[in-house]
């Protein structure tokens, strides 16, 4: 079973090579790769739920000398979300890029991005994580600039520079860890690390780099232009996955490897930044004229909720209470990933059909593209955090945890953020359902509309109604 770990990395990578070498068949190859990689991710999820954590030592060298891949419940769930979002976006991308030459250039980069996402979620080695972060950053930048529009290239260049800055900070932390502990293996490090200057300086450096990459307020400024100017399938994975895996790594470091070092003050700082991100991001989303920018600003805000969990989790006693709240964090992250990807795909369809994404001119969209509008509404349910979406469960845990630990501020911020989210979502829907007579009333769902609809449905119904397995999985994989 442990071989699934290496297949999750080797498969998209081999797909990237194959699409590059056989440009004429690149689209079928990419689709086959996407389906196969998703099946492997599903197998891994099943294996982790049955057997608990899995690990794989590459080259047969014991971790430390060699590099180990590890998967627990958290990484298996995120790998599954990655697979779903990538699969749906791949189907969409196949119809989005109409020129065969563009598709042939797109697929290798796309599959390399998938490789890097999987590699990051599986890596158990600090320096290897640095390499995966760079692979992630470079493939994301290459994809963000894909198409070569001026705004996209400019935003991609900024994104690249900041990403590099973040990676360098991360690497500085890694070198300090090796100097102090003589190991790069996360499991070994977890046992060896002690609350002392070497460790916390390293953690601070690595966290600073990751916060830049995950765009936490006030380090968020690069995100909206980069996510809003990329092509729709790319925006979807940038917002849903790329920032999220950097967040995953932060969680891994703060809650797992360096758990002994984290103080309430540090977690509180992250909470305050998260709260600011929620309010500022939602406010900007409400004010913006363009649908894609709205979605991008909403990502800034939604990432804020995830950071609110840090002070809440730290205030809860280790044990069932904390585990339950942690499950809330995971389900919120998963819901946002699926919903945001679906939202960006839906926006892409609107933009392609009507040639623009100005919110004020969306009149009649509901009549012309009912399925897509429905997908946007579903994504909205998840972004606001209404039942039965998974986000409702997540936010409920956040509120319950804040209540239990007496941190009233987070409750206020969560409620305010949800109200603002409701405002910007209803603003969009209000325009989309705007009164415009439309001659034909044939309700058809085009092929490119399905991915967005499926992703948003999963976010609302799938995770919301069947959220319990998430907690079981986190427990069995711990």
């Amino acid at each position, binding site marked *: 079973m442990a*071989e699934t770990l*290496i297949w999750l990395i*080797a498969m998209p*990578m*081999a797909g*990237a*090579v194959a699409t*590059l*070498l056989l*440009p004429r068949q690149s689209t079928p190859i990419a689709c086959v790769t996407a389906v196969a990689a998703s099946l492997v991710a599903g197998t891994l999820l099943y294996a982790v739920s049955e057997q608990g954590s899995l690990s*794989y*030592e*590459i*080259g*047969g*060298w014991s971790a*430390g*000398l*060699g*590099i180990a891949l590890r998967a627990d419940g958290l990484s298996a769930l995120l790998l599954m979300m990655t697979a779903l979002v990538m699969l749906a976006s791949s189907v969409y991308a196949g119809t989005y890029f109409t020129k065969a*030459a563009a598709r*042939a*250039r797109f697929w*290798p*980069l796309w599959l*390399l991005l998938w*490789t*890097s996402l999987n*590699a990051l979620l599986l890596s158990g080695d600090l*320096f*290897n994580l640095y*390499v*995966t972060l*760079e*692979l992630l950053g*470079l*493939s994301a*930048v*290459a994809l963000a*600039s*894909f198409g*070569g529009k001026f705004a996209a*290239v*400019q935003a991609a*260049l*900024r994104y690249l520079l900041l990403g590099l800055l973040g990676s360098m900070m991360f690497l*500085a932390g890694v070198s*300090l860890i090796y*100097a*102090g*502990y*003589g*190991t790069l293996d996360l499991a070994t490090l977890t046992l060896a690390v002690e609350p*002392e*200057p*070497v460790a916390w*300086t*390293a953690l*601070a*450096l690595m966290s600073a780099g990751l916060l830049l990459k995950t765009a936490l307020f006030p380090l968020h400024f690069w995100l909206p232009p980069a996510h809003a100017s990329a092509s729709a399938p790319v925006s979807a994975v940038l917002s849903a996955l790329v920032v999220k895996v950097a967040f995953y790594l932060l969680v891994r470091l703060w809650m797992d490897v360096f758990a002994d070092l984290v103080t309430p003050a540090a977690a509180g700082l992250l909470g305050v930044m998260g709260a600011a991100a929620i309010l500022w991001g939602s406010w900007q989303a409400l004010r913006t004229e363009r649908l894609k920018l709205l979605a991008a600003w909403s990502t800034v805000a939604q990432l804020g909720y995830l950071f609110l969990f840090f002070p809440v989790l730290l205030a809860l006693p280790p044990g069932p209470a904390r585990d339950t709240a942690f499950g809330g964090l995971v389900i919120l992250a998963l819901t946002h990933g699926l919903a945001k990807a679906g939202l960006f795909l839906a926006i892409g369809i609107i933009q392609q059909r009507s040639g623009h994404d100005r919110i004020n001119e969306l009149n009649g969209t509901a009549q012309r593209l009912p399925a897509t509008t429905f997908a946007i509404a579903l994504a909205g349910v998840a972004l606001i955090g209404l039942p039965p979406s998974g986000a409702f469960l997540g936010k409920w845990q956040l509120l319950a945890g804040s209540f239990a630990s007496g941190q009233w501020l987070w409750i206020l911020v969560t409620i305010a953020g949800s109200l603002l989210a409701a405002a910007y979502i209803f603003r969009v829907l209000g325009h989309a359902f705007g009164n415009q007579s439309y001659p034909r009333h044939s309700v058809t769902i085009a092929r490119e509309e399905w991915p967005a609809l499926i992703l948003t449905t999963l976010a609302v119904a799938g995770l919301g109604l069947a959220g319990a397995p998430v907690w079981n999985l986190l427990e069995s994989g711990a």
Partner: protein
Amino acid sequence: MTAMLVLDILLVLSLLSLATAALATNDARRSVILFMAFGLVLALAWGRLLAPDVALAEAAIGAGLSGALLLTAVRDQAHRALRSSRKPVHERGRANLRVTLEWTVTLLCIALAGLLAWALAQAFDRAPKDTLAQAVSANLAISGVSNPVTAVLLNFRAYDTLLELAVLLTAALGIFALGPARPGHRAAGPVFDGLARWLVPALILTAGYLLWVGAHAPGGAFQAGATLAAAAVVLRLAGRRSVGLPTGHTLHVAMVAGVSMFLAVGLGLLVLGRPFLGYPPAWAGGLILLIETAAMLAIAATLVLAFFGGRPTPAPGVAEKTS
């Protein structure tokens, strides 16, 4: 060894003053030349600190290729790229804000350097924990090579190198997607042409030598690839447009050579019932050389592509095949 101490001090001072000067100026061309000098001194520092493998890479990259890369970028006026974004400061309030920002960032950076140095000093003060270095030497005999750095790069941590080659491939694909290459250089005069005539074969021979020697002494795929790329850059600078980098499908094959050879070996071993990239000790030397040769080609192709700055177009007169 006071002479050595003074040498160390001079070396460090050179590094710091070059970096400061390269970063303080607004003249892009000056900045690049200073950075090239910085790379050269850095190569000396690597040599001084007994890291000849790194020194080789820095000599090929820092002092040669990246200089050529940055200089052509200056000619493209690339330094203007993000400039227009910052509006000129008109009001006094904005100017004050800018000064405050600069001071804050500077102070934060100084604090960061101090913090890092302090933590590093604490790490040094402990008993040296070189269990990993010991593990490397303990397993060196079954790694297939006798140069420990190559053993780490292509056997113990071969997975890192696989991902590194994927990073190179990604960069190449990104550059590729952005458009056609620069038009190329004018034919050089007789002096440089004469130099190129023997320099190119010498560089290719050196690349082969470095690849071969990497198994038991400093050297290896990356250093060899960078040297090979330098040969193509010299050809390009000499104005030989038609040679240097294949176009179309051949280029694709060269770009993915490293990743595909790595994957083929890794997955082949997996199918044979061994771990991914778990070479049998008897084959390890041969497999590593195989992978390194492919990696060298990929590295060279990517670096040359970077210097070209885009998709190379076929020589004039040859119709472009659609890909």
